[in-house]
């Protein structure tokens, strides 16, 4: 299992403007991550991606602990926090500290999916949101297609809805859909009458085929797969908001998602820093602790600075969202790209400072586990998903150049 070690967060970061209810959420998420995720993360990540390996227990426990209710208002049956997005970002950070697989499952279950429903009619919302918050059903959001990654435009989205009675039949293929192999329903971006729209599709029906899970570089605890829609039925009432609003809804959901993914980067980066500091203090070379080597002191001082800034950037984007900005830019784009970049940067140095131990997941001699090799693999994904970092930079540039 993952060993809890001294956290350096308090040494290098002082929060400002963080409400105490958010600190309470952090404590709850941290307790869960430390006592329930950490013990099983190695086993979870060592098994290849199979439907049977989905961490259903942890997903259910997050529901019991009320974590899926955090992003929602009391009226919606949620936790009713003053700064729900900030609290959700903190949950992501604490989950990703031990497992980015769990963090991204959380993201898809209640942040992306739930955000889509906030654009839906009261009736539609109330027929899905309670199941999301209770964890009784697993949700997913299907935007990406084999020939359209970050490019979300009507011309490039090939999934189409054809009228059939009081609803539609969907045809198309979605790719890299997180949670798809275990999900009960999916929000699907498709074209209705040639305009981008978002519909809710029951996945447990004929006309839906979910491929075997993809095998990935890291994050084996979360499953991605293709969803093939071959005439799946969608009742007209399952249209979110109205036809033509699909892109707006997707961007709205991805705004929350991107803040959350930035925060997951911060969590991974913090874990890398803590593991590295621990190692540097205990490992001796040439008669001195690694922590006495100026080269590593300066490298990790730089990383610590980057982590502190990335964390504030995510919190700032979240707070602006909580204060009413639907699209808090450029902070959201900055938080996503910078938070995830910092994680991959420090993961590389974390492996390096561990030397040979950074490259092993399990030492043959005594079965000791080392987490940094997993973090090295895990941290690369977030630079890509929910809009590659290049797309984020392009969004910042567009704001800057006024286009």
């Amino acid at each position, binding site marked *: 299992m993952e060993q809890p070690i001294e956290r*350096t967060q308090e040494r290098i970061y002082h929060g400002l403007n963080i409400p105490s209810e958010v600190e309470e959420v952090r404590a709850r998420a941290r307790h869960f991550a430390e006592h329930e995720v950490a013990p099983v993360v190695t086993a979870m990540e060592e098994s290849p991606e199979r439907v049977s390996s989905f961490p259903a227990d942890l997903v259910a426990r997050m529901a019991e602990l009320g974590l899926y209710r955090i992003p929602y208002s009391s009226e919606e049956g949620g936790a009713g926090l003053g700064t729900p997005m900030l609290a959700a970002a903190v949950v992501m950070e604490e989950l990703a500290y031990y497992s980015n697989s769990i963090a991204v499952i959380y993201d898809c279950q209640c942040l992306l999916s739930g955000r889509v429903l906030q654009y839906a009619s009261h009736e539609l919302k109330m027929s899905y949101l309670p199941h999301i918050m209770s964890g009784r059903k697993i949700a997913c959001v299907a935007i990406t297609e084999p020939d359209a990654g970050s490019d979300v435009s009507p011309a490039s989205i090939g999934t189409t809805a054809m009228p059939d009675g009081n609803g539609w039949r969907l045809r198309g293929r979605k790719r890299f859909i997180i949670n798809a192999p275990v999900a009960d329903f999916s929000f699907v971006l498709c074209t209705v009458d040639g305009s981008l729209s978002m519909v809710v599709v029951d996945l447990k029906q004929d006309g839906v085929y979910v491929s075997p899970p993809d095998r990935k570089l890291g994050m084996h605890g979360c499953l991605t797969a293709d969803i093939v829609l071959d005439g799946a039925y969608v009742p007209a009432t399952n249209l979110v908001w109205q036809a033509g609003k699909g892109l707006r809804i997707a961007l709205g959901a991805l705004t929350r998602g991107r803040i959350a993914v930035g925060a997951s980067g911060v969590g991974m980066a913090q874990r890398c820093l803590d593991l590295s500091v621990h190692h540097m203090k205990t490992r001796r070379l040439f008669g001195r602790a690694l922590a006495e080597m100026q080269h590593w002191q300066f490298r990790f001082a730089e990383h610590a600075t980057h982590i502190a*800034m990335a964390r*504030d950037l995510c919190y*700032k984007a979240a707070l602006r969202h909580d204060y009413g900005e639907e699209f808090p830019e*450029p902070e959201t*784009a900055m938080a996503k790209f910078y938070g995830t970049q910092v994680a991959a940067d420090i993961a590389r140095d974390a492996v390096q400072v561990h030397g040979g131990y950074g490259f092993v997941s399990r030492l043959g001699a005594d079965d000791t586990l080392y987490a940094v090799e997993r973090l090295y693999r895990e941290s690369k994904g977030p630079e890509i998903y929910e809009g590659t970092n290049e797309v984020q930079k392009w969004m910042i540039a567009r704001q*800057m150049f006024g286009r």
Partner: protein
Amino acid sequence: MVRPTRLQDILYHDWLLPQEARSVRSEIRRFVDEEVMPEADNLNTCIEDAAAFPRRLFCRMAEAGLFGVPFGVECGGRGLEYPLCAATVTIEELAYASDGLAAIYDDHALLPGAALLHGSRDVRRRYLEPLISGSSIACMAITEPHAGSDLRADTIHTHAVRDADTYVVNGRKRFITNAPVGDFMTTLFVIDGAMAMLVVDLHASGITVGPPDHKTGNRVQLTADVWLEDVRVPCGNLLGEIGKGLHIALAALTWGRIVIGASGVGMAQAALDECVHFMQRREMYGGTLGDLQYWQLRLAERATQISNARDMCYKAALLYDRGSRKPEPEMAMAKYYGTQVAGDMARDAVQVFGGLGYVTRLGADGSTYRVEQIYRDCKVAEIYEGANEVQKRVIARSLLGSEYLS
């Protein structure tokens, strides 16, 4: 000359500064736009001699109450609730137009000012009040030819012996900002093996100020060596007590480090604004430079760095104003990262401007380019008030604990 749009208003959303500091920012920006911008070119390209000191502007800053920003009402200051936040935005806005001017402000009002707060009521009346009113020009004298970042009783050669009511001081100080025009300097020295801080009158007998150094940039910031030869200073001019010299110096540098970080932010923002303005207008390959994806993404990275650096500076200042007298590691982070960003951005900015970014003054029509000035100015910020490597040591100490730092 058309000034570029201030992208800070589009790209940055303040979530830290109290309203008081935001008001100070608006006020300083107006002052800079009206009083500094028209003279900025000259400030940034002059040749270092005593005549280059911007006396009129210095007086205008005094009249506008800029030197009172960090201080309480009892000595003629503004008595703000968040004085360091206000000083931080003051420096940022000054550096946006002229880093040399920002450095004059820092080395007049902030560093000696902070040291004088340790003085007796009489010292504050005689030195701090004229400093704030602008009737005296102040200097901070720490560095010596053989002592920069490494301040210890045996590296500081300036020393004094007591003779009745006076200290007799001998030594030499280096890179002393404002010295060629200064009236007094708060001076780190050694007495009986202990470090102490003293206010030395620069008009006193035994003082020689060397000719100004010629520098890469920050031209209007005049620096010089100061020789002290049997200079007699009244004992009442001692700040704090003997043995507290390093403490007082470091307390002053606490202010200095945060604001120097902010000076980097101001320079970086100015360079970014200039680039975007230029790129939107410069035609190339049948479009504009602004169409080139490479530069779009690269400047997006820089914009992110600038926002991060700004937040870090404000955070450090706010932590200080809320009572943390050593806001570590944020203060060190603010200093090193804010100034590094300026260096990164400046190098790119000159590249964007091409040959025009490299001219101090175009022979054909006398044009000057702000990015060229920033490229020259920015480097020193990575060095002074604690080189960035010193800041990284401080951060490493927070991270690892001091037992690992020899």
